[in-house]
């Protein structure tokens, strides 16, 4: 026996192996929900056996053999699934005939394909976005339902139901367990990348709640992104997304002040940016560009983040280039939010008035009506133009719209600063008046 904490070791094996096990079994039983059940059964068996026997030399192989036995037992009981049982039996017979290293290699190669299939299946467009996120974290991230529920601030039974429904939907709609090909691939890959980035963002800027960053979700998304980049290394947009996440994650330490308050990008102490993640982010972006993906939606955002990462001080930021990248982004993925960001970059490059013109053009966009960053940006530009009264009103509006407590506090603080400036420094009111 190798010693140490056996239950911790089993939990570690579960984290590392369960996505691969679920993926391999799903290929055989054509049902991710069933596959997950069998893998769970195998871990229950491991929890019964391993504390006394110790960890087997190859825990993954042990678990796979056990899960497959469960699957065969189940399928035997289901006589109508006879055909599938034969497939399974054949596969096991084939594998038992091989030597161990060969089997490892064969499994390894196929596991890559299976994991990719599992990602595409968990992010299938037949599911709602919430369901895709939950299923991805559960099946590929190896998170428990309790952990996912906690991360998304919903009761555990609600999350359990969401996951169960998602699995049922995949079975009912007979979603094939496969990597889409041809024209379908781009859109489906996009769905996978979007799910990963949504998970990352949920962690990065929680839409509600006390905490500004819930970094564990960011780490889960980054890990899945890094895995995906290894599974499909030829897809530039994956590297673009990984680059974007690495670069954003590099700023974690600088994003929260000593009192727990939010610190905005340009106010951050750049010596706190994590150089290791910056380097990884720039390398991933470089890979995306080399593969011809410079104009990808995520690669462009990564390129923008890279402009910040390369500037040692805020003054060194190449805002002209950032404005250009936002313009390219607005062509690939037009959105009022991108335009708003372009306005910020323009203001930084050519002065607040240039930005304000674009922001004012966005004022009627229905998509931005409840978006706190519109008044927040407008307030900032007005502030820079010395129009403190109008700026204060905008910050108040923004504070009322955000659901994040820390962001709310930050905006109220800015509104108060406007009021003070107005009292002491209002150009429309001469001193002594």
């Amino acid at each position, binding site marked *: 026996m190798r010693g140490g904490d056996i239950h911790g070791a089993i939990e570690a094996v579960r984290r*590392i192996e369960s996505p691969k096990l679920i993926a391999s079994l799903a290929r055989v039983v054509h049902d991710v929900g069933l596959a997950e059940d069998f893998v769970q059964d195998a871990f229950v068996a491991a929890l019964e056996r391993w504390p006394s026997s110790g960890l087997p030399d190859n825990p993954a192989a042990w678990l796979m053999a056990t899960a497959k036995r469960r699957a065969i037992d189940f399928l035997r009981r289901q006589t109508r699934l006879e055909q599938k049982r034969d497939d399974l039996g054949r596969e096991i017979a084939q594998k038992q005939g091989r030597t161990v290293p060969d089997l490892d290699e064969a499994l390894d190669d196929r596991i890559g394909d299976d994991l990719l299939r599992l990602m595409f299946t968990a992010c299938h467009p037949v599911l709602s976005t919430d369901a895709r996120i939950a299923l991805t974290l559960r099946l590929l991230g190896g998170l428990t339902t309790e952990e996912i529920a906690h991360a998304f601030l919903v009761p555990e039974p609600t999350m359990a139901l969401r996951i169960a429904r998602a699995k049922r939907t995949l079975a009912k709609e007979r979603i094939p367990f496969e990597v889409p090909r041809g024209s379908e691939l781009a859109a489906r890959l996009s769905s996978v990348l979007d799910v990963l980035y949504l998970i990352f963002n949920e962690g990065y800027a929680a839409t509600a709640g006390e905490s500004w960053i819930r970094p*564990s979700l960011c780490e889960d998304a*980054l*890990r*899945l992104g890094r*895995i995906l980049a*290894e599974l499909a290394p030829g897809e530039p947009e994956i590297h673009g997304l990984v680059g974007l996440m690495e670069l954003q994650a590099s700023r*974690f330490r600088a994003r929260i002040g000593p009192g727990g308050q939010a610190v905005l990008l340009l106010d951050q*102490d750049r*010596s706190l940016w994590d150089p290791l993640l910056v380097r990884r982010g720039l390398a991933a972006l470089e890979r995306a560009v080399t593969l011809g993906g410079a104009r990808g939606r995520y690669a462009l955002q990564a390129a923008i983040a890279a402009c910040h990462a390369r500037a040692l001080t805020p003054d060194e930021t190449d805002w002209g280039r950032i404005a250009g990248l936002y313009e390219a982004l607005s062509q690939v993925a037009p959105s009022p939010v991108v335009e708003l960001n372009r306005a910020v970059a323009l203001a930084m490059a050519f002065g607040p008035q240039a930005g304000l013109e674009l922001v004012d053009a966005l004022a009627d966009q229905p998509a931005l009506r409840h978006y706190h960053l519109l008044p927040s940006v407008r307030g900032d530009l007005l502030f820079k133009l010395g129009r403190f009264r109008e700026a204060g009103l905008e910050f108040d509006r923004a504070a009322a719209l955000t659901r994040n407590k820390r962001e709310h506090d930050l905006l109220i603080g800015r509104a108060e600063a406007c009021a003070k400036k107005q009292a002491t420094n209002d150009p429309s009111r001469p001193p002594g008046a």
Partner: protein
Amino acid sequence: MRFMMLMIPKEYEQAAPGAMPDAKAVAAMMKYNESLQKAGVLLALDGLHPPSMGARVSFADGKARVTDGPFPEAKEVIGGYWMIQVKFRAEAIEWASRCPASANETIEVRQVQEFSDFPADVKEVVDQFPDLQAMRHDTTR
């Protein structure tokens, strides 16, 4: 959380300058490194030249004192490291356990310090001294 896995190969403290592991060991290790990479946990890794090519700087009398390698008194030296990002300690230990290391090698698994690990009084000190801010990690972890 981040962990550093420190590879401690016995007798590396006596290795001649320029000593390199043999190709077969490297091949096995590359495969292991690849498995860390594929699992999305590997952040960085490096191998280190033997101590006979290095130097030690000690401060016994309050001043820097340089000794060139090798260091006959050293019992254990580091041959290389992996920096990994995992969910919990046992996961780091599990990854270390999977290393195709030889009988004379030991891996020490060490967690990277983060700001949230510091006790309250240390946090206060770090907060008061901007020069120490480079040590600060995010507070929500």
